[in-house]
């Protein structure tokens, strides 16, 4: 069964493709979201199209499917409502699927379930990445704040950090937020260039 994947994120498209392949669905076409959409879908002639809900081309795709019907080709439609739970799970995860009419419902459900799991795996990845980025940014701002404290108050590094930490504890704020405030204040009020 041929499945087309349209995703604005090439990482997510790869994650979905890998999952489908592991499940033995190997006839996959990844559509280039920057290229002419309808032409690529037409060439691929898929039985199922997986696309992310926020893709800006969804209206274009639906128009293409509707036109295909006018040209006496298979009808395409959003996932059949006879499976409302899996449809809702899909929309919650941010995936939309278009299914060629006549494809047995029991064949689309596992694909959709798998796509949902892969979408969730991707968003976990995104969250972890965002957390890692924040941690890095936090460390940088704390280092800068420590340097400011060391210079302005003649402290050594452990003492500067201890000061930051105790202020964070007494004011019930994150150390990084206190550090951020020090750096900002130094930029505005300090004698740095």
């Amino acid at each position, binding site marked *: 069964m041929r499945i087309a994947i349209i995703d604005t994120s090439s990482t997510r498209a790869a994650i979905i493709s890998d999952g489908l392949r592991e499940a033995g669905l190997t006839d996959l076409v990844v559509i280039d979201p920057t290229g002419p959409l309808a032409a690529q879908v037409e060439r691929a002639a898929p039985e199922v199209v997986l696309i992310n809900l926020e893709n800006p081309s969804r*209206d274009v795709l*639906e128009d293409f499917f509707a036109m295909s019907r*006018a040209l006496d080709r298979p009808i395409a439609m959003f996932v059949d*409502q006879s499976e409302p739970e899996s449809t809702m799970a899909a929309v919650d995860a941010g995936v*939309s699927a278009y299914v060629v009419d006549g494809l047995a419902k029991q064949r689309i459900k596992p694909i959709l379930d798998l796509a949902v799991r892969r979408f969730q795996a991707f968003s976990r990845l995104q969250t972890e990445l965002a957390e890692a980025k924040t941690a890095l940014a936090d460390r940088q701002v704390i280092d800068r704040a420590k340097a400011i404290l060391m210079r302005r108050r003649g402290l050594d590094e452990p003492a500067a950090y201890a000061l930051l930490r105790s202020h964070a504890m007494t004011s019930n704020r994150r150390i990084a937020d206190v550090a951020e405030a020090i750096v900002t204040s130094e930029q505005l009020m300090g004698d740095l260039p």
Partner: protein
Amino acid sequence: MSLDTFRIGFLPLVDAALPILAHELGFAEAEGIAIELVRDVTWAAVRDRLLYGHTDAAHLVAPLAISTALGRDRPAVPMAVPFVLGLNGNALTFSTALGEAVGLGETLGDPVAIGVALKAVAERRRDAGKPLRFGVVHRHSSHNYMLRYWLAGVGIRPDTDVAIIVTSPPFAADALAAGEVDGICVGEPWNSIAVDRGVGRIALATAQIWRRGVEKVLAMRADRAEERRDGVLRLIRALHAAAAHFVDPETVEQSAAILSRPHYLNAPVDAILRAITDRIRVVPGGEPVHYPDFMFQYREAANFPWRSQAAWLYAQMVRWEGLPFSPEDAATAQDVFRPDLYRAALAGSGAPLPGASSKLEGALVEPIGAGSTQGRLVLGSDPFFDGRAFDPDDIPGYLAGLP
């Protein structure tokens, strides 16, 4: 006390103003409800979030609510439209090259004269194997039907002489700039943004094609509208109050500033202000032209969901999608519009309430007083550019008489 919350989906367009203002300016809170706004970039996503419960209501192109209820292209879901968010407010913008080819002036021109010039260009391009391409925002949009109505009316066959394709509103100006299309029919501020970017000029306001054409609506699933009936009535009152505020000349700058925020339209305040005040800059660098009915909210019970407007949209679906007319479908389409909810919400408020739920569309040549059960209602002239009227009780007869 926690407020009854409505999550409302919308696209970044000026006519999403009423739910945004109802939220921002406290009209919702005054009715004991809260509004959370959920922005998308395609109508398909707005519709899907509505159908699968991410949102409770949506700012939606009216024909899409009807096609969803009719099960066109997807399984049918009963829909309810208790409130019209506005009439018209769209324009047809040509690329600079096409604008020059048809001789557009410095002001909004005459639909018939522009049509004659366009027909000559369209035929040349068709014969050369490179037909003109127009972008509309969704196949089930008033933009698509207004454009087709006008093209057919001036003797240009849509789908044969020209191509009509879909492009989402926030990308319409880009499509024009990139030469993917020769013209776009889209809501504001995207026409004005195309003009300000110097990539196009406004040929016509859709109000010139149908003076009182139904545009965006507040759409809900019919079952949810039933379950939350009390909340829906409050929401209608909040939107109606927001509409009165929106058309007040004293508040337009405030409204434009709110709409321009990144979270809403993320667009220049100046372009939004021109749309709200019906002052449209049609050529780059030109003086804005005042066209009083460009965008139409509130007055003349503009927010009332006339069943005859739903019937007109259904008639266009039959006309352009090659599907047979069906009396059952016509009834389903009209049942989507819910004047009963509108009346229930605004009874006793002093807002004019039409006595009828359906009218002859496009038949008024001058303003007349209309029957109302409450308040004084005057309906302005509402012609189609070709002078035809639409009788919702005789859709087959109407379709047979069209070019």
